[in-house]
């Protein structure tokens, strides 16, 4: 898809690289050496074949193999995603659980409404506001995510807090809402009634009977969001000048650097697929109904 899209878009690769004043012959020669004058299907076939073998092709702009760029960027994105993930998943679930346990009381309203309001704000708005508050005004955190060379783990972490906050805000409301509705459903269920009527202490009812059933659907949601955390960060990475896969794709798209663009997007696709697969796997492990099937 991306491959076709890149081909259909107006513009000529050689022309884009060499600039508008270059000689037409030079452009043709460059196009030939890059292989972009070959028939479309041949190009596609060789590209896919090479990708499977681990060769992502050669960048048009940097004139070097694509793979190191993509892998580096992916690594960086994963760091950012990991920080955001570690922040948002426990807090989001906790928020949802607390909201459900205080259903329709002020605490629930604050969490639900607050979560929803920050979720609907796009990350470039929250990102800028957070930069202004923590980076410019309070000066607690660096406004750029680009940490100095040879920075240690904690320094990197320090640089990543501010960029991960907008992600946290986007996902918090979402995860909290899922956890909340899962909890409400589980609390209203007949098996919870059974547990309460057995005379179990409230704490046992929640921990043993409610939580596990309540959070199953939330896990699926979280996993699909993992894909977003890694692949959908163009805005955040640009805003914080962070060398992740989102900004790599963005740059590549502007420069018509198709090998990089295609490799980047395919990589994100793979990450999505793997994350969803992992979620399904986790779900089936936690859910005996799927794990064991029916006895029929």
């Amino acid at each position, binding site marked *: 898809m991306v491959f076709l899209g890149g081909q259909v878009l107006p513009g000529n690769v050689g022309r884009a690289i060499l600039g508008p004043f270059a000689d037409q012959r030079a452009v043709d020669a460059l196009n030939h050496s890059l292989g972009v004058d070959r028939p479309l299907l041949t190009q596609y076939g060789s590209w896919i074949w090479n990708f499977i073998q681990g060769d992502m092709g050669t960048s048009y702009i940097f004139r070097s193999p694509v793979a190191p760029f993509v892998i580096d960027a992916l690594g960086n994105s994963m760091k950012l995603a990991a920080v955001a993930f570690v922040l948002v998943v426990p807090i989001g679930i906790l928020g949802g659980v607390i909201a459900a346990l205080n259903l329709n009381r002020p605490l629930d309203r604050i969490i639900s409404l607050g979560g929803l309001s920050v979720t609907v704000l796009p990350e470039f708005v929250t990102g800028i506001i957070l930069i202004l508050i923590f980076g410019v005004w309070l000066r607690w955190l660096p406004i750029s995510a680009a940490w100095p060379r040879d920075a240690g783990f904690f320094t990197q972490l320090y640089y990543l807090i501010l960029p991960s906050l907008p992600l946290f805000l986007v996902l918090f409301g979402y995860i909290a809402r899922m956890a909340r509705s899962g909890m409400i459903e589980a609390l209203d269920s007949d098996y919870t009634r*059974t547990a309460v009527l*057995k005379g*179990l202490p409230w704490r046992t009812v929640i921990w043993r*009977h409610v939580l596990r059933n309540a959070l199953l659907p939330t896990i699926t949601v979280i996993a699909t969001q993992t894909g977003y955390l890694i692949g959908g960060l163009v805005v955040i990475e640009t805003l914080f000048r962070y060398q992740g896969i989102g900004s790599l794709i963005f740059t590549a798209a502007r420069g018509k650097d198709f090998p990089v663009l295609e490799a980047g997007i395919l990589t994100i696709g793979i990450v999505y697929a793997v994350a969803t697969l992992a979620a399904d796997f986790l779900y089936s492990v936690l859910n005996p109904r799927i794990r064991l099937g029916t006895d029929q």
Partner: protein
Amino acid sequence: MTEPAKPANALELHDLSVAYRVGGRNRAVLRNLSLGIGQGEAYGLVGESGCGKSTVALTVVRYLPRNGSITGGAISLDGQDVMKLDAEALRRARAESVSMVYQDPGKALNPSLRIGRQLTEIFELGGVSGQAASDKAIAMLNRVRISDPASVMQRYPHQLSGGMQQRVAIAMALANDPTMLILDEPTTGLDATVEAEVLDLIAQLRQELSASILFISHNLAVVSNMCDRVGVLYAGMLVEEGPTDVVFNDPRHPYTVALLRCLPRGGQRKDHGRLDTIPGFLPGIGAAIRGCAFADRCALATDRCRTELPPLYDLGGRLSRCHYHEQAQSLPRATPSDAAASTPKAAAESVLRVEGLNKTYASHGHALRAVKDVSVSLRPGETLGLVGESGSGKTTIARLLLGLVPPDEGGRIELEGKPLAARLDNRTADQIKAMQIVFQNPDSALNRSHSIRHLISRALKRLAGLSGAALQARLDELVRSVRLTDRHLAVKPRQLSGGLKQRVAIARAFAGEPRIVVCDEPTSALDVSVQAAILNLLADLQSKEHVSYIFISHDLAVVRYLSDQIAVLYLGRIMELGPSENVFAGPHHPYTEALLSAVPKLDQTETSRIRLDGEIPSATNPPSGCVFHTRCPRKLGAICEEQEPSLAEAEPGHTIRCHIPYAELARLQKQKAVQTEPA
């Protein structure tokens, strides 16, 4: 049975009032309810849905929904005032003295915990843990007659059948040796044979345990078999109370009288006349009631009834909340009994003929024979009843006939003498029109966002091809024939009660003047008074329009009322097929015999019941020979395991699939003197 150290009553409700907060207002659900259940006594609470039965149960254990509150009165459980208990004391009361079992055991058990864990945690509360708790759990499962309890302990709820799940739920409820056991519709939704097993179990456990029982059910026959005393609840008030047999045989409140008349009893059939109904509706929750709650629906009501709330008159060991309790039984019928039933013309050509119908599904690489070699024929104006436990193929047959799923190659379906294509897509518009269906749940069958007028007109447009004035005229006629009024046309389905919604569904099915209407459990979700009205309606429409029905129901009395022919299905095979009266009167197939025997009857004449052991075998791996031999109480021997018997003619038009010769069946069944009249 009273033990001296204990208070006289295990449960005592005094002037209990409960309200639900709906739309910012407290609406009364229970109104000054007082009742007492003695030590070791089984008390039945009956009434239609919405009368507050389950609210009573939930109030006793203080588990009302968030919007529910106790607005007055007192509950005393084993001498303890439940209302005054703090959270911890309430928890202890639940752990030690009261237990509850409710409908739908599949939901009542935690889906992600093993059975063993769910049982042992109860013993852990009592300070028993580890192996000792497991041993106790196994003993408990043994007690509820679960064979191989050790393996059941390791399973998850979804790996057990409905009957097993309910046994486990009962085991959990009895684990703390409660003084009060609340059973809220414990067998509703289970198959008749499974229901019979669970009821037997409860009856046996009653002998072994000292627990008092509050048994809540909409099924009068179940209550009459299980309980010593019964209370009839109407609009949150007790309207009648007394010893079970006395109340059911000699009711003293018009509501009880009317309720009992709604049931098709003693083999009543459509050509004997219509069932009685109860006009009007139950007052909604929170309705202001000045006089007698039932006055609006009672043909005996006078001005006094409408203005003066009758007290619970004490009639010597029984109570009735009716000013005119002596006359209750002279309540005139709400629906005249005399209605001409259609008699199928003997010589008439079959409207439907099915031959050699098969359906095999592929299930995880195995062939699942959902329907095997089914042949039936149906004459105009005749009803074919399909009965059998769940999984017997009733609904699959309906779907095959309607063309919703294609049957296997080779079978034939003929409609009015012409072959009918297997798939709906290949049928002509006329053929589609000729066969319609009414589903069990009118809620999901009607589009919620359309008005009733739109729903019915659309069917008239699509099926009858009508428009303009002709459509309007037919709409009026149709609406009148299902006894809806213009008032109902403007509203959306959610504003109608279940019975009215089912009328809309019936009107829609009749829009195209069908030849055959498939009724798939059309009254299962309805209260008995509403069920009676729907059955009457179906019978009336049949005699007027000469339409044929294929009627699927698990309720044998209902099937008997409407059917001319009955097909008894087991694992997709017809085990017995014949005229309704012959099938019911017997001699019948051993499976039919067991099904009939499993039905709880209002007049407790029968004490011994034929029990079917085990569960329906899987259709992917049906037993060899006669598929019923694994559960058959009359199994002959090797022949049943090796050879599948054929459907042999027992008497003209009545065929039975059994190795036992007909004369022998007659002798065996007469010997047992099994009473075959269902309630």
